[in-house]
């Protein structure tokens, strides 16, 4: 009786999980169909599958947009790490006045909606001739992710055993050696988690990309909508493009699940 109940709950769990995952699974499945099969009712399950739609997606120039997304995501993540690692180190291991105020400031900038700054940013970039410029997008994404990175990094730094740092200081290590030789190696998994989360947020960003890019620097998220075509059938090709767009981040997220969980709860959840 007890065992039966367990089996029932397990079955229910799996049904619900699969239902929840269904849109993603269906998107991947549809991407291998022909347009006709993708739009047929009742939906076709047994149908010829091919990579044709993927070829079509790249014929429409998705490569350029993927490269733009990659450039913006990687460059913004690098800027963030370069600024956040020293800042978090300063905020956690070494004494500083008003740590709470500084932390509060950082996190409050993340909660400031993009609405707060989009207009001036638009006009400043316009006057600098930097609309539709991937460098500008990278810098903006860095500012978007910096606060989260500082918070996460700080919670990782807080976990470095105090003795290790003190031992290094007694050995006469100066600030830079202390940071690079002693603390960073311990923190590599944490840094990887921060980098991953920054990358995900940058890769998925839509609002700034839509408003500040038009063609040369356009990233993947706003480009996807261009597959919607009022005249004909587009479900299969849209599914293929979406699958490519979500794949890098989904795989990375699956691989780094544990770190991701910690990072998302910003170190509060252990």
């Amino acid at each position, binding site marked *: 009786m007890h065992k039966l109940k367990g089996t029932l709950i397990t079955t229910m769990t799996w049904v619900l999980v699969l239902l929840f995952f269904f849109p993603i699974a269906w998107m991947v499945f549809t991407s291998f169909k022909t347009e006709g099969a993708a739009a047929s009712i009742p939906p076709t399950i047994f149908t010829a599958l091919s990579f044709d739609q993927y070829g079509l997606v790249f014929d429409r120039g998705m490569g350029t947009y993927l490269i733009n997304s990659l450039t913006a995501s990687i460059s913004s993540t690098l800027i963030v790490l370069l600024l956040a690692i*020293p800042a978090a*180190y300063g905020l956690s291991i070494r004494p500083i006045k008003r740590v709470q105020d500084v932390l509060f400031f950082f996190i409050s*900038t993340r909660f400031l909606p993009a*609405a707060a*700054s989009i207009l001036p940013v638009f006009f400043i970039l316009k006057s600098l001739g930097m609309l539709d410029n991937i460098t500008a997008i990278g810098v903006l994404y860095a500012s978007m992710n910096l606060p989260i990175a500082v918070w996460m990094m700080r919670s990782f730094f807080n976990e470095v055993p105090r003795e290790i740092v003190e031992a290094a200081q007694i050995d006469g290590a100066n600030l830079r050696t202390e940071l690079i030789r002693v603390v960073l190696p311990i923190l590599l998994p944490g840094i990887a988690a921060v980098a991953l989360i920054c990358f995900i947020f940058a*890769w998925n960003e839509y609002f700034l990309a839509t408003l500040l890019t038009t063609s040369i620097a356009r990233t993947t998220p706003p480009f996807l909508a261009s597959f919607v075509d009022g005249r004909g059938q587009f479900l299969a090709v*849209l599914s293929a493009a979406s699958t490519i767009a*979500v794949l890098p981040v989904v795989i990375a997220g699956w691989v780094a699940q544990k770190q991701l*969980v910690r990072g998302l709860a910003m170190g509060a959840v*252990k």
Partner: protein
Amino acid sequence: MTTLKTAPSPAPEPPSVKRLHPAALTLRKKARQSRALVLPALFFSILVTQIPFLVTIYFSFLNWNQLRPTEIAFAGFENYAVVFTGPDFLPSLWATVVITGSSVVLSLIFGLFFAVLLDRKFMGQGLARTLMITPFLVMPAAAALIWKWSMLDVNVGMVNVGLNFIGLPSVAWNTDFPALTIIMMLTWQYTPFMMLILLAGLQSQSREVLEAASVDGAGPLRTFQWMTLPHLRQYIEIATLLGSIMLLQAFDPIAIMTKGTGGTKTLSYLLYERAFIGLDVGQAAAFGVVTVIVTIAVATLALRTLFKVFMNGSER
């Protein structure tokens, strides 16, 4: 955390460096180094986020329509008067509250439900968890497009196929129930986020206490109500607050699925419309400032609680 607190003398130190204890002196040097480490990040943040916000406030007092770029003039509080007396603000505020509120509550309920289910040991637990977190990783623009055209479309959407299968008629979700569509979409996306945080909370529970409760004859429901839920409270708070702040800024599904029709014109979408379709910079800026104030109201509450949680024991 200040240098003074860690200095050996309990009395406030005079500013003169000479009279400080040598230990305090090194601490001072360290504090200076720490500041040097934090400053670049601080400077960058101020430059890219704070200064534009100040400029937004300035814009909000201007009479500036991009259709008449030569006629920029000082407008006083005129833009704010338009915001508060115009027909758009209240419905928009309401749409923001309804969409954010229901998505937060629904994703929290689903998240708790899934967290409890996935906390059990069962076959394929790891795989189920991996599948469950995926909606949060998927690019929101892609998710919105797939939901709109592949799931909710009135002719070929799979949700309608499912409805027809159990004998119900198709529903034109995007056009007939725009707000519900957006809420469904956001709930689907944020349930994994809520689940992850709550799952971590469930797993931090002491097994012995739970076993003791079951030995004492407490049923699973009572144990959940009286032990697990109180334990989860802090996690529920974090999840709610982080979730509301992120959902308050949701823009992608609205821009892609409903374009602000039928009660989905949230404050952030309204601002976008005013500035980039209506081309009225001054008014859009005023909407921006008001949006920020609404967000700050939520965020202050959020940050207070966050700080209470984060600063407990994390202070060195």
